């Protein structure tokens, strides 16, 4: 477990940037990807009028480049972000040993962020029911008779690991994992673990979510988890603001290349984005959806301990910050427990203020921002936190904060009692 692990490549596809640089610029400028969701009639829902989706022109160019037949949209987005990350890492096909792949593709249901696809799906389901009913044997017989492409509901199967293996030219030790919204950081943890125990020298971490459709919004509305903000959409996700009312569902994809520092050096990589420190994991068994302050505290303290750091050593926090009432107050209280008086001066950043919540993909996108913060010494603003919640009492800024940053603590939590924290350190030779 002594191998130092570094981030040598990064790629993103988001509503506010389809490259790492454009995504970073948007974060610094406070450019929001949130918009009024006018593709669906959501007025009757108790929430959920605002979403964050990748612009159509970006989707078109990505689909043209990566949209092979039968490839699910989630996989297309992952190919786009992974390709960026490999290019960024200077990957040139020079791997000598098996590589790692840890990835999370949040099940999109029977369509991704394409409401018309969902309408078509449910229309076909109705037609099928009218023709043969819904008894499983009859449905099977119907599908067996049909000559058309398989129903999209079977598309959660993915050839992504095999395709990536072909691209890298080596076998992959691959794990598609689910740790709900902590899944991005968990994937990063497991890639780092593969390297630290010497199984691989080089690994790709990828996460994608694309599920902005009638079904997903109806289900999150049932959970009362979505923002009820009815004013300018760009303000709808407001982590740590006293007016926050819920999260905004996002479509996004992110990828990171991690490798041992020794491996990076050996293949001529001189500058990297970040060094991975320690991490902390925790499981709450008390409640399915409500966050637990003890678990947040435990995950953060474990990450610090395993990084051989104290709270005083942390320069900023890249928060989970979902904009739900409960998450933000719980995370804030746990931060106060860990950092105490330091909270007055400890900068906190919350990327979801601009991107919305991309489940597992958010952990990757926010890691990208954490790494750039370390390299460039700039903390992105939280422009939607214009009325900070005094109960949260965390220090966010409406403008970028420029100062040297050596360490970032990153949090990600999720339904099902999932908690993960990770420390990132400024590398010896940071990428400019």
């Amino acid at each position, binding site marked *: 477990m002594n191998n130092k692990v570094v981030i040598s490549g990064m790629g993103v596809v988001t509503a506010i940037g389809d490259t790492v640089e454009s995504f970073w610029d948007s974060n610094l400028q406070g450019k929001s990807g949130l918009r009024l969701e006018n593709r669906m009639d959501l007025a009757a829902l108790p929430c959920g009028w605002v979403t964050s989706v990748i612009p159509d022109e970006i989707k078109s160019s990505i689909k043209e480049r990566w949209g092979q037949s039968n490839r699910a949209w989630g996989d297309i987005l992952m190919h786009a972000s992974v390709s960026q990350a490999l290019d960024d890492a200077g990957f040139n096909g020079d791997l000598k040993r098996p590589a790692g792949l840890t990835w999370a593709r949040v099940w999109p249901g029977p369509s991704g962020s394409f409401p018309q696809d969902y309408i078509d799906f449910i229309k076909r389901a109705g037609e099928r029911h*009218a023709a043969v009913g*819904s008894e499983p044997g009859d*449905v*099977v017989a119907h599908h067996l008779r049909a000559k058309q492409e398989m129903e999209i509901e079977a598309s959660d*199967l993915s050839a992504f690991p*095999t395709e990536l293996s072909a691209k890298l030219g080596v076998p992959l030790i691959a794990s*598609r994992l689910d740790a709900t919204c902590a899944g991005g950081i968990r994937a990063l943890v497991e890639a780092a673990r*593969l390297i630290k125990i010497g199984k691989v020298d080089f690994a790709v971490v990828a996460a994608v979510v694309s599920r902005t459709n009638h079904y997903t919004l109806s289900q999150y509305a*049932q959970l009362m988890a979505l923002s009820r903000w009815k004013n300018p959409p760009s303000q709808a996700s407001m982590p740590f603001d006293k007016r926050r009312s819920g999260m905004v569902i996002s479509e996004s994809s992110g990828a990171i290349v991690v490798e041992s520092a020794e491996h990076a050096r050996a293949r001529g990589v001189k500058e990297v984005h970040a060094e991975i420190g320690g991490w902390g994991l925790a499981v709450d068994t008390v409640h399915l*959806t409500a966050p637990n302050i003890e678990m947040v505290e435990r995950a953060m303290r474990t990450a610090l301990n395993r990084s051989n750091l104290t709270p005083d050593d942390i320069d900023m926090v890249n928060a989970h910050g979902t904009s739900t009432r409960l998450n933000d107050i719980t995370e804030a209280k746990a931060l106060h427990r860990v950092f105490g008086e330091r909270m007055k001066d400890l900068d906190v950043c919350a990327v979801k203020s601009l991107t919305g919540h991309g489940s597992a993909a958010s952990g990757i996108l926010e890691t990208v921002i954490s790494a750039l913060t370390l390299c460039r010494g700039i903390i992105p603003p939280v422009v939607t936190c214009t009325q900070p919640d005094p109960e949260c009492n965390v220090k966010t800024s409406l403008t970028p904060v420029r100062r040297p940053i050596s360490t970032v603590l990153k949090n990600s939590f999720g339904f099902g009692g999932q908690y993960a924290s990770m420390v990132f350190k400024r590398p010896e030779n940071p990428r400019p």
Partner: protein
Amino acid sequence: MDRIVISGAALLSAAGTGAAPVFDAMVSGTHFFDRQQEGKRSLHEKFPWPEASLNDPDVPWPEGSAWVDIKKYANASAHQAVAVARMAVEQSGVPDEINGLRCGTVVASGNRVDELSPIIGKLGILAQTDPRPLAKLLYDEIPDYSYLRGIPCQSGQFICLATGFRGSNVAVYGEAGAGGLGALAFAMRLIQSGELDRVMVAGVGIPISPAMLVAFDRNDPLGTESNPGRGPFDIGRAGTLLGHGAVAVIIENDELATARGAPRLARLLACETINFNSRTTALDFATRAVLDEAGRRPDMWWAHGAGSVLMDLMECQTVRPLVDAPTTSSKGTIGNTFESSGLIDLVLAIESLKRGEVPPVGLLEKPDPALGEVDFVVKTSRRLGSDARAALVTALDQRVAAAGAAIIASVET
């Protein structure tokens, strides 16, 4: 690295509870496919494929106040996962006072099972005439919490509650996990890295949606007959036979298991799953990797043995050059349980080493000569030599180029 032992194992299959009923059925040539069993209810009467179904798929939910309110978040998969996890803990004798933060759960998950499958057609009909916008209609009509019940790692949270294993919970999808061995390899790394001391690895092969089954069938035909001569490796095999099952295995640091006097059912010498450009290359790499890591040849091979024309051929042609040992498979007896199959086979291999006996392959009458010189165990059990200690278990993914392999050994080794 620390040595790892298996200290608890439990399974539910069409044969009943535990490894022994499956093993005994294989020895006696019994199988559990619905249509051949008089009086047994077929899970899906109209399916063209026979299934080896659980006798009682409605596994009871734990009692007690902590379990009442959360039952609404649990699907059938969660019920089965909790049941086998509790059985494994009981066998392993994990004391209540363990440090639960040093223990965790890895669940081998299927592709998300959509509990809406039975009702989505009716919703589609309703949507044609109902004045409500579609999102509102779904909001009103879809059963509460169905979205949460479908979260793959949700079963793991319940296992954490049932067992006190609270250090980590993650689900690993079967498509890259080759039937549960991916979850096992993942769990091994959690111990090898020092993150945890003890991990519950659970697999539940839950009913697959009709659309997914047809997708499987189109990719590689599923078996439509469960008669003798239609089993794995037979010249007349014609597709994998469907099965249902749930399994839980506890692996832990050997030193700690020994210190607490835990049952040490077997050593887990090596486990790996690989994705590569084909199943053949993936399996070749995974098998070589575990043989190298284990540092010894196996005395028996518990093969995946899907019963598929192509997969059996590929598996034999790949592994036989590396391993020459008595070979069996469970899928002609309890069917292919998909995500849990690799773990079930691991538990059966433990039973095999314990008994010193390799049971015959169910429904295998005449081995296909095209499969090469594989030492299949046909119709009659084979006694293992007194010095036989290690078993190879292999697992293949049904649709993508992923394969897994594991080597276990008796604790005396």
